[in-house]
Protein backbone atom coordinates (compact mmCIF):
# COMPACT_ATOMS: atom_id res chain seq x y z
CA UNK A 1 0.00 0.00 0.00
CA UNK A 2 1.20 3.48 -0.73
CA UNK A 3 2.11 5.34 2.41
CA UNK A 4 0.40 8.41 1.02
CA UNK A 5 -3.11 6.98 0.90
CA UNK A 6 -3.67 7.70 4.54
CA UNK A 7 -3.04 11.40 4.22
CA UNK A 8 -5.30 13.90 2.52
CA UNK A 9 -2.42 15.54 0.69
CA UNK A 10 -1.41 12.30 -0.95
CA UNK A 11 -3.66 12.55 -3.94
CA UNK A 12 -1.62 15.36 -5.49
CA UNK A 13 1.35 13.12 -6.08
CA UNK A 14 1.80 12.32 -9.72
CA UNK A 15 3.30 8.89 -9.29
CA UNK A 16 2.96 6.41 -6.49
CA UNK A 17 6.00 6.49 -4.31
CA UNK A 18 7.92 3.43 -3.46
CA UNK A 19 10.45 3.68 -0.66
CA UNK A 20 13.58 5.43 -1.83
CA UNK A 21 12.08 6.62 -5.08
CA UNK A 22 11.81 10.34 -5.65
CA UNK A 23 8.62 11.69 -7.11
CA UNK A 24 7.99 15.03 -8.76
CA UNK A 25 5.02 16.88 -7.42
CA UNK A 26 3.47 19.80 -9.19
CA UNK A 27 1.75 21.89 -6.52
CA UNK A 28 -0.26 24.65 -8.10
CA UNK A 29 -0.55 27.02 -9.93
CA UNK A 30 -4.26 26.68 -9.24
CA UNK A 31 -5.00 24.77 -6.13
CA UNK A 32 -7.29 25.60 -3.22
CA UNK A 33 -4.57 24.95 -0.67
CA UNK A 34 -2.23 27.58 -2.05
CA UNK A 35 -4.57 30.62 -1.76
CA UNK A 36 -3.42 32.24 -4.94
CA UNK A 37 -1.60 31.50 -8.13
CA UNK A 38 1.59 29.85 -6.95
CA UNK A 39 3.33 26.95 -8.54
CA UNK A 40 5.93 24.85 -6.81
CA UNK A 41 7.57 21.95 -8.53
CA UNK A 42 8.71 19.77 -5.68
CA UNK A 43 10.86 16.71 -5.44
CA UNK A 44 9.39 14.55 -2.74
CA UNK A 45 10.42 11.33 -1.08
CA UNK A 46 7.18 10.06 0.32
CA UNK A 47 5.87 13.09 2.15
CA UNK A 48 9.24 14.70 2.72
CA UNK A 49 10.14 17.61 0.50
CA UNK A 50 13.65 17.34 -0.89
CA UNK A 51 13.60 20.46 -3.01
CA UNK A 52 11.17 22.97 -4.34
CA UNK A 53 11.26 25.28 -7.31
CA UNK A 54 8.75 28.13 -7.21
CA UNK A 55 7.50 29.59 -10.47
CA UNK A 56 5.91 33.00 -10.17
CA UNK A 57 4.52 35.60 -12.53
CA UNK A 58 1.20 33.98 -13.41
CA UNK A 59 -0.68 37.19 -12.72
CA UNK A 60 2.02 39.65 -13.70
CA UNK A 61 0.27 42.77 -14.96
CA UNK A 62 3.24 45.01 -15.80
CA UNK A 63 2.36 47.63 -13.20
CA UNK A 64 5.74 49.30 -13.41
CA UNK A 65 5.39 49.74 -17.16
CA UNK A 66 1.78 50.89 -16.82
CA UNK A 67 2.83 53.45 -14.23
CA UNK A 68 5.22 55.05 -16.71
CA UNK A 69 2.24 55.98 -18.86
CA UNK A 70 -0.18 57.21 -16.22
CA UNK A 71 -0.50 60.53 -14.40
CA UNK A 72 0.19 60.35 -10.69
CA UNK A 73 -3.39 60.25 -9.50
CA UNK A 74 -4.22 57.41 -11.86
CA UNK A 75 -1.58 55.17 -10.30
CA UNK A 76 -3.50 54.77 -7.05
CA UNK A 77 -5.84 52.11 -8.50
CA UNK A 78 -2.77 50.14 -9.59
CA UNK A 79 -1.49 50.07 -6.04
CA UNK A 80 -4.84 48.63 -4.90
CA UNK A 81 -3.99 45.50 -6.77
CA UNK A 82 -0.66 44.83 -5.10
CA UNK A 83 -1.60 43.45 -1.71
CA UNK A 84 -5.35 43.40 -2.25
CA UNK A 85 -6.03 42.20 1.29
CA UNK A 86 -4.98 45.61 2.59
CA UNK A 87 -5.31 47.99 -0.35
CA UNK A 88 -5.70 51.15 1.77
CA UNK A 89 -2.15 50.83 3.07
CA UNK A 90 -0.84 50.67 -0.49
CA UNK A 91 -2.96 53.67 -1.50
CA UNK A 92 -1.75 55.74 1.45
CA UNK A 93 1.85 54.77 0.79
CA UNK A 94 1.51 55.99 -2.78
CA UNK A 95 -0.16 59.27 -1.78
CA UNK A 96 2.61 59.90 0.73
CA UNK A 97 5.28 59.18 -1.88
CA UNK A 98 3.84 61.75 -4.26
CA UNK A 99 3.36 64.22 -1.41
CA UNK A 100 7.01 63.78 -0.51
CA UNK A 101 8.05 64.42 -4.11
CA UNK A 102 5.83 67.45 -4.51
CA UNK A 103 6.62 68.80 -1.05
CA UNK A 104 3.02 68.73 0.16
CA UNK A 105 2.41 68.93 3.90
CA UNK A 106 -0.88 67.41 4.91
CA UNK A 107 -2.77 68.56 8.02
CA UNK A 108 -2.45 66.54 11.20
CA UNK A 109 -6.07 65.49 10.87
CA UNK A 110 -5.32 63.75 7.57
CA UNK A 111 -2.47 61.85 9.22
CA UNK A 112 -4.80 60.61 11.93
CA UNK A 113 -7.53 59.68 9.47
CA UNK A 114 -4.96 57.78 7.45
CA UNK A 115 -3.71 55.96 10.53
CA UNK A 116 -7.24 54.79 11.33
CA UNK A 117 -7.78 53.51 7.79
CA UNK A 118 -4.36 51.86 7.58
CA UNK A 119 -4.71 50.10 10.91
CA UNK A 120 -8.18 48.85 9.98
CA UNK A 121 -6.66 47.47 6.80
CA UNK A 122 -3.89 45.82 8.80
CA UNK A 123 -6.46 44.15 11.04
CA UNK A 124 -8.40 42.89 8.00
CA UNK A 125 -5.22 41.52 6.43
CA UNK A 126 -4.03 39.79 9.59
CA UNK A 127 -7.49 38.32 10.17
CA UNK A 128 -7.44 36.76 6.72
CA UNK A 129 -3.94 35.40 7.14
CA UNK A 130 -4.41 33.99 10.62
CA UNK A 131 -7.80 32.47 9.96
CA UNK A 132 -6.44 30.84 6.82
CA UNK A 133 -3.66 29.26 8.86
CA UNK A 134 -6.50 27.77 10.87
CA UNK A 135 -8.24 26.55 7.71
CA UNK A 136 -5.07 24.88 6.50
CA UNK A 137 -4.79 22.96 9.75
CA UNK A 138 -8.39 21.84 9.30
CA UNK A 139 -10.08 24.34 11.62
CA UNK A 140 -12.63 26.11 9.45
CA UNK A 141 -14.75 27.55 12.26
CA UNK A 142 -12.48 30.43 13.27
CA UNK A 143 -12.33 31.55 9.67
CA UNK A 144 -16.09 32.00 9.51
CA UNK A 145 -16.07 33.92 12.82
CA UNK A 146 -13.54 36.52 11.79
CA UNK A 147 -14.77 36.94 8.27
CA UNK A 148 -17.87 38.55 9.74
CA UNK A 149 -15.59 41.08 11.42
CA UNK A 150 -13.60 41.63 8.25
CA UNK A 151 -16.90 42.35 6.54
CA UNK A 152 -17.51 45.13 9.07
CA UNK A 153 -14.13 46.66 8.24
CA UNK A 154 -15.04 46.54 4.56
CA UNK A 155 -18.34 48.24 5.32
CA UNK A 156 -16.35 51.04 6.92
CA UNK A 157 -14.15 51.37 3.84
CA UNK A 158 -17.30 51.44 1.76
CA UNK A 159 -18.60 54.28 3.91
CA UNK A 160 -15.41 56.27 3.37
CA UNK A 161 -14.74 55.70 -0.32
CA UNK A 162 -17.51 53.59 -1.81
CA UNK A 163 -15.37 50.54 -2.51
CA UNK A 164 -14.53 47.50 -0.46
CA UNK A 165 -11.61 45.45 -1.69
CA UNK A 166 -9.75 47.57 -4.22
CA UNK A 167 -10.43 50.77 -2.40
CA UNK A 168 -8.61 53.59 -4.23
CA UNK A 169 -9.12 55.39 -0.94
CA UNK A 170 -8.02 58.97 -0.33
CA UNK A 171 -6.39 61.41 -2.68
CA UNK A 172 -2.97 62.96 -3.06
CA UNK A 173 -3.21 65.59 -0.31
CA UNK A 174 -5.84 64.00 1.89
CA UNK A 175 -9.25 62.42 1.64
CA UNK A 176 -12.03 63.02 -0.84
CA UNK A 177 -14.47 63.86 1.96
CA UNK A 178 -14.79 64.03 5.71
CA UNK A 179 -15.46 60.75 7.53
CA UNK A 180 -19.22 60.54 7.85
CA UNK A 181 -21.05 60.19 11.19
CA UNK A 182 -22.09 56.72 10.00
CA UNK A 183 -18.43 55.79 9.68
CA UNK A 184 -17.68 56.97 13.19
CA UNK A 185 -20.64 55.09 14.64
CA UNK A 186 -19.57 51.95 12.78
CA UNK A 187 -16.00 52.37 13.97
CA UNK A 188 -17.03 52.87 17.58
CA UNK A 189 -19.30 49.85 17.40
CA UNK A 190 -16.45 47.83 15.90
CA UNK A 191 -13.99 48.92 18.58
CA UNK A 192 -16.49 47.87 21.22
CA UNK A 193 -17.56 44.55 19.76
CA UNK A 194 -14.47 43.31 17.97
CA UNK A 195 -12.35 42.46 21.04
CA UNK A 196 -14.98 39.92 22.10
CA UNK A 197 -15.06 38.27 18.68
CA UNK A 198 -11.29 38.37 18.51
CA UNK A 199 -11.13 36.63 21.87
CA UNK A 200 -13.45 33.92 20.62
CA UNK A 201 -11.16 33.33 17.65
CA UNK A 202 -8.09 33.47 19.86
CA UNK A 203 -9.60 30.91 22.24
CA UNK A 204 -10.25 28.56 19.36
CA UNK A 205 -6.68 28.42 18.16
CA UNK A 206 -3.93 30.09 20.17
CA UNK A 207 -3.75 27.65 23.07
CA UNK A 208 -5.45 24.79 21.28
CA UNK A 209 -3.31 21.69 21.78
CA UNK A 210 -4.06 20.25 18.35
CA UNK A 211 -3.35 23.53 16.61
CA UNK A 212 -0.14 24.08 18.56
CA UNK A 213 1.17 20.61 17.84
CA UNK A 214 0.46 21.20 14.22
CA UNK A 215 2.10 24.60 13.74
CA UNK A 216 4.95 24.80 16.26
CA UNK A 217 8.17 24.14 14.41
CA UNK A 218 6.60 24.30 10.95
CA UNK A 219 8.66 26.35 8.50
CA UNK A 220 11.09 28.04 10.90
CA UNK A 221 13.69 30.61 9.91
CA UNK A 222 16.58 32.07 11.89
CA UNK A 223 16.87 35.86 12.32
CA UNK A 224 20.16 35.94 10.38
CA UNK A 225 18.64 34.09 7.45
CA UNK A 226 15.52 36.24 7.61
CA UNK A 227 17.54 39.46 7.40
CA UNK A 228 19.66 38.08 4.58
CA UNK A 229 16.54 37.12 2.65
CA UNK A 230 15.12 40.60 3.05
CA UNK A 231 12.29 39.65 5.39
CA UNK A 232 10.26 42.51 6.80
CA UNK A 233 6.97 42.77 8.61
CA UNK A 234 5.39 40.11 10.83
CA UNK A 235 7.50 37.33 9.28
CA UNK A 236 10.70 39.05 10.35
CA UNK A 237 9.35 39.96 13.76
CA UNK A 238 8.33 36.33 14.29
CA UNK A 239 12.01 35.49 13.93
CA UNK A 240 12.79 37.90 16.77
CA UNK A 241 13.89 41.09 15.01
CA UNK A 242 11.92 44.16 16.06
CA UNK A 243 12.09 46.07 12.78
CA UNK A 244 8.96 48.03 12.01
CA UNK A 245 8.87 50.95 9.56
CA UNK A 246 6.22 52.66 11.70
CA UNK A 247 8.79 53.00 14.48
CA UNK A 248 12.03 53.16 12.52
CA UNK A 249 10.94 55.82 10.00
CA UNK A 250 7.62 57.12 11.29
CA UNK A 251 5.27 58.46 8.62
CA UNK A 252 1.77 59.84 8.90
CA UNK A 253 2.37 60.88 12.55
CA UNK A 254 2.92 57.34 13.84
CA UNK A 255 5.35 58.86 16.33
CA UNK A 256 2.32 60.29 18.19
CA UNK A 257 0.97 56.88 19.09
CA UNK A 258 1.93 54.48 21.78
CA UNK A 259 2.20 50.86 20.71
CA UNK A 260 4.55 47.92 21.07
CA UNK A 261 6.11 45.74 18.41
CA UNK A 262 5.40 42.10 19.22
CA UNK A 263 8.23 39.72 18.37
CA UNK A 264 8.52 35.96 18.24
CA UNK A 265 11.45 33.69 18.90
CA UNK A 266 11.69 30.78 16.47
CA UNK A 267 10.28 32.31 13.29
CA UNK A 268 7.99 29.32 12.78
CA UNK A 269 4.34 29.24 11.77
CA UNK A 270 3.15 29.51 15.36
CA UNK A 271 5.27 32.60 16.01
CA UNK A 272 4.04 34.23 12.84
CA UNK A 273 0.49 33.50 13.92
CA UNK A 274 1.06 34.90 17.43
CA UNK A 275 2.82 38.02 16.16
CA UNK A 276 -0.12 38.79 13.90
CA UNK A 277 -2.60 38.11 16.66
CA UNK A 278 -0.80 40.58 18.90
CA UNK A 279 -0.48 43.14 16.11
CA UNK A 280 -4.25 43.11 15.71
CA UNK A 281 -4.52 44.16 19.36
CA UNK A 282 -1.91 46.87 18.90
CA UNK A 283 -3.71 48.14 15.81
CA UNK A 284 -6.95 48.42 17.77
CA UNK A 285 -5.09 50.36 20.42
CA UNK A 286 -3.65 52.73 17.80
CA UNK A 287 -7.09 53.27 16.25
CA UNK A 288 -8.54 54.08 19.66
CA UNK A 289 -5.78 56.63 20.30
CA UNK A 290 -6.22 58.23 16.88
CA UNK A 291 -9.96 58.42 17.37
CA UNK A 292 -9.66 59.99 20.82
CA UNK A 293 -7.09 62.54 19.76
CA UNK A 294 -8.54 63.32 16.32
CA UNK A 295 -7.40 66.89 15.61
CA UNK A 296 -9.70 69.58 14.32
CA UNK A 297 -9.12 70.87 10.85
CA UNK A 298 -9.57 70.19 7.20
CA UNK A 299 -9.55 66.69 5.72
CA UNK A 300 -7.16 67.63 2.93
CA UNK A 301 -4.11 69.78 2.28
CA UNK A 302 -4.50 73.10 0.54
CA UNK A 303 -2.94 72.05 -2.75
CA UNK A 304 -5.30 73.04 -5.57
CA UNK A 305 -2.83 71.79 -8.18
CA UNK A 306 -3.21 68.21 -6.90
CA UNK A 307 -6.45 68.05 -4.97
CA UNK A 308 -9.64 68.09 -7.03
CA UNK A 309 -11.86 71.10 -6.21
CA UNK A 310 -15.45 70.65 -5.10
CA UNK A 311 -17.76 70.09 -8.04
CA UNK A 312 -19.90 73.16 -7.25
CA UNK A 313 -16.82 75.33 -7.51
CA UNK A 314 -15.87 73.80 -10.84
CA UNK A 315 -19.19 75.04 -12.22
CA UNK A 316 -18.87 78.52 -10.77
CA UNK A 317 -15.20 79.48 -10.49
CA UNK A 318 -12.67 79.73 -13.28
CA UNK A 319 -9.66 78.70 -11.15
CA UNK A 320 -11.43 75.60 -9.94
CA UNK A 321 -12.36 74.69 -13.50
CA UNK A 322 -8.75 75.08 -14.64
CA UNK A 323 -7.40 72.97 -11.80
CA UNK A 324 -10.09 70.37 -12.32
CA UNK A 325 -9.20 70.11 -15.99
CA UNK A 326 -5.47 69.96 -15.36
CA UNK A 327 -5.77 67.29 -12.69
CA UNK A 328 -8.15 65.13 -14.71
CA UNK A 329 -5.99 65.42 -17.83
CA UNK A 330 -2.85 64.78 -15.80
CA UNK A 331 -1.22 68.10 -16.59
CA UNK A 332 -0.17 69.00 -13.06
CA UNK A 333 3.44 70.16 -12.95
CA UNK A 334 5.53 68.08 -10.57
CA UNK A 335 9.17 68.62 -9.60
CA UNK A 336 11.87 66.45 -11.09
CA UNK A 337 13.60 64.31 -8.50
CA UNK A 338 13.68 60.92 -6.91
CA UNK A 339 12.18 59.69 -3.68
CA UNK A 340 11.95 56.46 -1.79
CA UNK A 341 9.10 56.18 0.64
CA UNK A 342 8.31 53.13 2.70
CA UNK A 343 5.28 52.22 4.74
CA UNK A 344 4.70 49.24 6.98
CA UNK A 345 2.37 47.19 4.86
CA UNK A 346 0.48 44.29 6.37
CA UNK A 347 3.19 41.87 5.29
CA UNK A 348 6.29 44.03 5.42
CA UNK A 349 8.04 47.12 4.21
CA UNK A 350 6.17 48.36 1.16
CA UNK A 351 8.42 50.84 -0.61
CA UNK A 352 7.90 53.13 -3.57
CA UNK A 353 10.96 54.23 -5.49
CA UNK A 354 9.88 57.02 -7.78
CA UNK A 355 11.96 58.89 -10.34
CA UNK A 356 10.29 61.95 -11.82
CA UNK A 357 11.70 63.89 -14.75
CA UNK A 358 9.10 66.60 -14.27
CA UNK A 359 6.79 65.05 -16.85
CA UNK A 360 3.15 64.11 -16.43
CA UNK A 361 3.95 60.53 -15.52
CA UNK A 362 6.67 58.95 -13.40
CA UNK A 363 9.87 58.31 -15.33
CA UNK A 364 10.35 55.15 -13.33
CA UNK A 365 8.36 53.67 -10.50
CA UNK A 366 9.50 50.63 -8.66
CA UNK A 367 7.46 48.88 -6.01
CA UNK A 368 9.43 47.26 -3.22
CA UNK A 369 7.01 44.43 -2.67
CA UNK A 370 7.73 42.65 0.59
CA UNK A 371 6.38 39.24 -0.34
CA UNK A 372 8.24 39.14 -3.65
CA UNK A 373 11.42 39.46 -1.65
CA UNK A 374 10.72 37.06 1.16
CA UNK A 375 8.97 34.37 -0.87
CA UNK A 376 12.37 33.36 -2.28
CA UNK A 377 13.22 31.91 1.10
CA UNK A 378 10.31 29.49 0.82
CA UNK A 379 12.21 26.55 -0.74
CA UNK A 380 14.80 26.74 2.00
CA UNK A 381 12.17 27.01 4.74
CA UNK A 382 10.30 23.92 3.66
CA UNK A 383 13.26 21.77 2.70
CA UNK A 384 13.06 18.49 4.57
CA UNK A 385 9.65 19.21 6.01
CA UNK A 386 6.38 17.43 5.39
CA UNK A 387 4.20 18.46 2.50
CA UNK A 388 1.39 19.54 4.80
CA UNK A 389 3.80 21.78 6.70
CA UNK A 390 4.79 23.41 3.43
CA UNK A 391 1.16 24.41 2.85
CA UNK A 392 1.03 25.88 6.35
CA UNK A 393 4.31 27.70 5.89
CA UNK A 394 3.06 29.36 2.75
CA UNK A 395 -0.22 30.53 4.25
CA UNK A 396 1.52 31.78 7.40
CA UNK A 397 4.01 33.80 5.32
CA UNK A 398 1.04 35.73 3.92
CA UNK A 399 2.25 35.63 0.34
CA UNK A 400 -0.26 37.55 -1.75
CA UNK A 401 -0.15 36.73 -5.44
CA UNK A 402 -1.05 40.26 -6.53
CA UNK A 403 1.88 41.73 -4.69
CA UNK A 404 4.25 38.92 -5.60
CA UNK A 405 3.70 39.32 -9.33
CA UNK A 406 2.96 43.05 -9.53
Amino acid sequence: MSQLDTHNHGNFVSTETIDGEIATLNLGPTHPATHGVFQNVMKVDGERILSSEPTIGYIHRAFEKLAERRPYNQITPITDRLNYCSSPINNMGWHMTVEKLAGINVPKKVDYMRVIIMELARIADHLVCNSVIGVDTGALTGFTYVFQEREKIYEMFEEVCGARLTTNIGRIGGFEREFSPVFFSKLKKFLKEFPGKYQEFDDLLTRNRIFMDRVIGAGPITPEKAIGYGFTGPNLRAAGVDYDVRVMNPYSSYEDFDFTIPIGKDGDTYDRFIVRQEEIKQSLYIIQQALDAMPEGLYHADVPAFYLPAKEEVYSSMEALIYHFKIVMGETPIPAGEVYHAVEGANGELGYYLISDGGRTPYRLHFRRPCFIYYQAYPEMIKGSLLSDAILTMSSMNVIAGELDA
Partner: protein
Amino acid sequence: MSVQEINNASVLEALAAEFGELIINSDEPYGFLTIEIPAEKNTAIIQWLMEHPTIKMNFLTDLCGVHFPDNKGKEIGVVYHLHSWTNNFRMRIKCFVAAATPEVPTLTTLFDAANWMERETFDFYGIQFVGHPDLRRILNMDEMDYHPLLKQYALEDETRDDKDDRFFGR
Protein backbone atom coordinates in the same frame (compact mmCIF):
# COMPACT_ATOMS: atom_id res chain seq x y z
CA MET B 1 38.32 55.21 9.50
CA SER B 2 35.92 55.22 12.41
CA VAL B 3 32.73 57.17 12.08
CA GLN B 4 31.16 58.50 15.25
CA GLU B 5 27.87 59.93 14.16
CA ILE B 6 26.20 58.36 11.17
CA ASN B 7 24.71 60.90 8.83
CA ASN B 8 24.90 61.72 5.13
CA ALA B 9 28.03 63.86 5.47
CA SER B 10 29.99 61.48 7.69
CA VAL B 11 29.20 58.38 5.61
CA LEU B 12 30.10 60.19 2.43
CA GLU B 13 33.33 61.39 4.00
CA ALA B 14 34.22 57.87 5.11
CA LEU B 15 33.47 56.52 1.64
CA ALA B 16 35.54 59.22 -0.01
CA ALA B 17 38.44 58.53 2.34
CA GLU B 18 38.32 54.81 1.60
CA PHE B 19 37.49 54.78 -2.09
CA GLY B 20 38.42 58.26 -3.33
CA GLU B 21 37.86 58.50 -7.05
CA LEU B 22 35.51 55.52 -7.10
CA ILE B 23 32.74 57.66 -5.69
CA ILE B 24 31.85 59.21 -9.04
CA ASN B 25 29.34 61.65 -7.66
CA SER B 26 26.97 62.13 -4.78
CA ASP B 27 23.73 63.89 -4.12
CA GLU B 28 21.08 64.20 -1.43
CA PRO B 29 17.68 64.33 -3.12
CA TYR B 30 15.07 64.81 -0.39
CA GLY B 31 17.74 64.21 2.24
CA PHE B 32 18.51 60.70 0.96
CA LEU B 33 22.22 60.10 0.44
CA THR B 34 22.77 58.92 -3.14
CA ILE B 35 26.13 57.98 -4.58
CA GLU B 36 27.22 56.75 -7.96
CA ILE B 37 29.95 54.14 -8.21
CA PRO B 38 31.53 52.17 -11.07
CA ALA B 39 29.53 49.00 -11.73
CA GLU B 40 32.52 46.68 -11.36
CA LYS B 41 33.20 47.96 -7.83
CA ASN B 42 29.65 47.54 -6.49
CA THR B 43 30.32 44.37 -4.53
CA ALA B 44 33.47 45.73 -2.93
CA ILE B 45 31.92 49.01 -1.87
CA ILE B 46 28.67 47.50 -0.61
CA GLN B 47 30.60 44.82 1.27
CA TRP B 48 32.73 47.52 2.86
CA LEU B 49 29.60 49.43 3.92
CA MET B 50 28.09 46.23 5.24
CA GLU B 51 31.13 45.19 7.26
CA HIS B 52 32.09 48.65 8.47
CA PRO B 53 32.17 48.56 12.31
CA THR B 54 29.92 51.57 12.77
CA ILE B 55 28.08 52.17 9.48
CA LYS B 56 26.78 48.57 9.25
CA MET B 57 24.50 48.71 6.20
CA ASN B 58 23.05 45.34 7.05
CA PHE B 59 19.92 45.26 4.91
CA LEU B 60 19.37 45.33 1.18
CA THR B 61 16.00 47.06 0.99
CA ASP B 62 15.62 47.25 -2.72
CA LEU B 63 17.36 46.64 -6.00
CA CYS B 64 15.98 47.76 -9.33
CA GLY B 65 16.96 48.82 -12.82
CA VAL B 66 16.60 52.15 -14.57
CA HIS B 67 17.05 53.12 -18.21
CA PHE B 68 18.15 56.53 -19.51
CA PRO B 69 18.52 56.09 -23.30
CA ASP B 70 19.98 59.59 -23.73
CA ASN B 71 22.79 58.96 -21.28
CA LYS B 72 25.23 57.65 -23.88
CA GLY B 73 27.59 55.00 -22.58
CA LYS B 74 25.72 54.83 -19.27
CA GLU B 75 22.24 54.00 -20.46
CA ILE B 76 21.32 51.28 -18.04
CA GLY B 77 21.59 51.56 -14.31
CA VAL B 78 21.10 49.48 -11.20
CA VAL B 79 19.87 51.21 -8.07
CA TYR B 80 20.48 49.70 -4.65
CA HIS B 81 18.75 50.90 -1.50
CA LEU B 82 20.63 49.96 1.63
CA HIS B 83 19.51 50.35 5.20
CA SER B 84 21.49 50.24 8.41
CA TRP B 85 19.10 49.08 11.11
CA THR B 86 21.43 49.80 13.99
CA ASN B 87 21.86 53.43 12.90
CA ASN B 88 18.52 53.80 11.12
CA PHE B 89 20.38 55.19 8.15
CA ARG B 90 19.34 54.69 4.55
CA MET B 91 21.33 55.31 1.41
CA ARG B 92 21.03 54.75 -2.31
CA ILE B 93 23.80 53.48 -4.56
CA LYS B 94 23.67 53.69 -8.32
CA CYS B 95 25.87 52.22 -10.97
CA PHE B 96 25.53 52.64 -14.70
CA VAL B 97 26.65 50.51 -17.63
CA ALA B 98 26.46 50.81 -21.40
CA ALA B 99 23.41 49.28 -23.08
CA ALA B 100 25.70 47.27 -25.36
CA THR B 101 27.40 45.48 -22.47
CA PRO B 102 25.02 45.55 -19.51
CA GLU B 103 27.16 43.58 -17.07
CA VAL B 104 27.07 44.17 -13.34
CA PRO B 105 28.59 41.90 -10.67
CA THR B 106 26.02 40.08 -8.59
CA LEU B 107 25.19 40.91 -4.99
CA THR B 108 23.97 37.40 -4.22
CA THR B 109 27.31 36.73 -2.54
CA LEU B 110 26.37 39.32 0.10
CA PHE B 111 22.59 39.11 0.34
CA ASP B 112 20.38 36.10 -0.36
CA ALA B 113 17.59 38.58 -1.07
CA ALA B 114 19.43 39.85 -4.15
CA ASN B 115 18.70 36.61 -5.99
CA TRP B 116 15.15 37.29 -7.12
CA MET B 117 15.61 41.03 -7.21
CA GLU B 118 18.42 40.58 -9.73
CA ARG B 119 16.36 38.08 -11.70
CA GLU B 120 13.56 40.64 -11.87
CA THR B 121 16.00 43.34 -12.99
CA PHE B 122 17.42 41.00 -15.63
CA ASP B 123 13.91 40.15 -16.76
CA PHE B 124 12.90 43.76 -17.27
CA TYR B 125 16.18 45.41 -18.30
CA GLY B 126 18.37 42.61 -19.59
CA ILE B 127 21.14 43.39 -17.14
CA GLN B 128 23.55 40.47 -16.87
CA PHE B 129 24.47 39.95 -13.23
CA VAL B 130 27.86 38.32 -13.45
CA GLY B 131 28.16 35.45 -11.00
CA HIS B 132 24.43 35.10 -10.34
CA PRO B 133 23.68 31.43 -9.62
CA ASP B 134 20.43 31.23 -11.58
CA LEU B 135 19.85 34.19 -13.87
CA ARG B 136 16.52 33.44 -15.54
CA ARG B 137 13.39 35.41 -16.21
CA ILE B 138 11.08 35.50 -13.25
CA LEU B 139 7.85 37.38 -13.95
CA ASN B 140 7.66 37.24 -17.73
CA MET B 141 7.46 34.05 -19.73
CA ASP B 142 10.68 32.36 -20.70
CA GLU B 143 9.97 32.64 -24.43
CA MET B 144 9.93 36.42 -24.36
CA ASP B 145 12.66 37.85 -26.58
CA TYR B 146 12.96 41.40 -25.24
CA HIS B 147 13.25 43.22 -21.92
CA PRO B 148 10.02 45.14 -21.60
CA LEU B 149 10.86 47.98 -19.22
CA LEU B 150 13.48 49.39 -21.57
CA LYS B 151 12.28 52.74 -22.82
CA GLN B 152 12.31 51.79 -26.50
CA TYR B 153 9.29 49.55 -25.97
CA ALA B 154 6.13 51.63 -25.94
CA LEU B 155 3.38 50.53 -23.61
CA GLU B 156 0.70 50.81 -26.24
CA ASP B 157 0.69 49.39 -29.70
CA GLU B 158 2.17 52.15 -31.86
CA THR B 159 0.48 50.94 -35.01
CA ARG B 160 -2.94 51.85 -33.70
CA ASP B 161 -4.37 55.06 -35.05
CA ASP B 162 -7.62 55.19 -33.07
CA LYS B 163 -5.85 56.62 -30.04
CA ASP B 164 -4.55 60.07 -30.77
CA ASP B 165 -2.32 61.22 -27.95
CA ARG B 166 -3.32 64.84 -28.43
CA PHE B 167 -6.82 64.04 -27.28
CA PHE B 168 -5.62 62.31 -24.15
CA GLY B 169 -3.40 65.06 -22.85
CA ARG B 170 -0.26 63.10 -23.56
